[in-house]
């Protein structure tokens, strides 16, 4: 491959043309490597697992900085410690604001979700990186983990019997008992299909749309020699803002789902029926 061919290939890869069959987003390191070394098994492997690769990169950044900040533990925080303490305190205030003092133990899970998804969303803005959350597989994985976590919290907080009763629609009387199979189907569908689908599809659709938008503006910049650069800049700013919003929404909804699983003092232990549950849930969905 001579130099001019290599430059042309890089340009194509940068605008995503070379990787068009793999998605509609800007080229990343793996698509670039695949363009340069199409026959390499390692490059094909990396390209196949690109979402996992970029997730691991994001995870590494988060884990290294967070652990480093936690180990510092100075009385007067500075730099990275200050940054992480701000994040932790913000998440703590947010989660305990919704769940009360009982939400304290859910801070690590919800905080990890927020930080991890946010960095993954932002990854697409870095040249030759990719947002793993623009793939449904990634967002579905997080949604499934969230659903399992929520159900575990439900069983833990209400007890298994009350959890089953809640799933059966808290039946009372003959009619309630007759409707148990129907209520079970409805509740199981909501909890195990609707919730993960709504959580994962929302995040996936938003982030992949942002990435497509960035790709289209990049293509326009190539076509018109950088004239629509301001549009590209505007799209980047939008992507930064929407990435925060989407990560926050994922955490917010997860927090709300957890709060619905906690026993309500005023209505008795585990007596949160789905009619009552869906009210704040619907409000949250409407807000989103």
């Amino acid at each position, binding site marked *: 491959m001579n130099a001019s061919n290599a430059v042309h290939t890089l340009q194509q890869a940068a605008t995503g043309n070379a990787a068009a069959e793999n998605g509609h987003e800007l080229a990343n390191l793996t698509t670039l490597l695949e363009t340069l070394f199409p026959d390499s098994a390692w490059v094909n492997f990396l390209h196949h697992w690109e979402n996992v690769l970029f997730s691991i990169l994001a995870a590494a950044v988060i884990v290294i900085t967070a652990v480093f900040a*936690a180990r510092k533990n100075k009385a007067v925080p500075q730099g990275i410690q200050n940054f992480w303490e701000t994040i932790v305190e913000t998440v703590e205030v947010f989660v305990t604001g919704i769940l009360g003092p009982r939400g304290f133990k859910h801070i690590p*899970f919800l905080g*990890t979700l927020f930080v991890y998804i946010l960095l993954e969303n932002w990854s697409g803005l870095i040249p030759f990186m990719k947002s*793993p959350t623009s793939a449904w597989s990634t967002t579905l*994985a997080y949604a499934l983990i969230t659903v399992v976590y929520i159900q575990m919290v439900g069983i833990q907080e209400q007890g298994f019997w009350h959890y089953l009763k809640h799933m059966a629609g808290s039946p009372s009387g003959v009619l309630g008992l007759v409707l148990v199979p129907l209520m079970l189907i409805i509740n199981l569908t909501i909890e195990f299909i609707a919730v993960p689908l709504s959580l994962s599809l929302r995040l996936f659709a938003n982030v992949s749309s942002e990435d497509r938008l960035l790709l289209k503006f990049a293509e326009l910049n190539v076509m018109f020699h950088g004239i629509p650069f301001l549009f590209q800049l505007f799209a980047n700013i939008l992507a930064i803002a929407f990435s925060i919003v989407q990560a926050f929404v994922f955490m917010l909804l997860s927090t709300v789902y957890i709060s619905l699983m906690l026993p309500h003092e005023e209505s008795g232990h585990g007596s949160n029926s789905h009619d009552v549950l869906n009210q704040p849930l619907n409000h949250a969905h409407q807000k989103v």
Partner: protein
Amino acid sequence: MEFFKANIIPGEVIVQIIAFLIVFWTLKVFAWKPILKSLAARQNKIKQELDQIEAARHDIEVLKNQYASHLQKIDDEARLKIQDAVEEGRKIAHEIQEKARRDSQSTFEKTKENLELEVDKARIELRREIADLAIMVSEKIVQEKMTDSKQQDKILDMIKELEAASEKKREGLS
């Protein structure tokens, strides 16, 4: 269904779940818990220090009040002592005046008595001198012959004059 098949890769989902669980566990153990603990400890420390500052401020306020009341007490005592001292001074001055007056009175009395004594002594002396003079005169007259009655009368007149002169002298001394 095709959309699901195209977008959901089961293997990737499983690997992402495992990756997330590893990140979650690592962050929970090594980041979230230590940072939350550190924040709580700092919050408690700040709260304790603020409470201590508040308690110290309260103590200072109490001490300030005590100090002010002590100062007031000291002022009152000083005022009372000054008043007592002034009263004492007046009393002493009055006593000194009284004593001076008594002393002067007694001195005057003594002086007067001394003077009277001196006058009496002088009178006695004078009488003695007169007697001596009279004896001298009489001796003189006796030596010149006391024959004539006119001479006798003259002597008697002289004695009277002498007595009158001595009387006048005594009055002048008293």
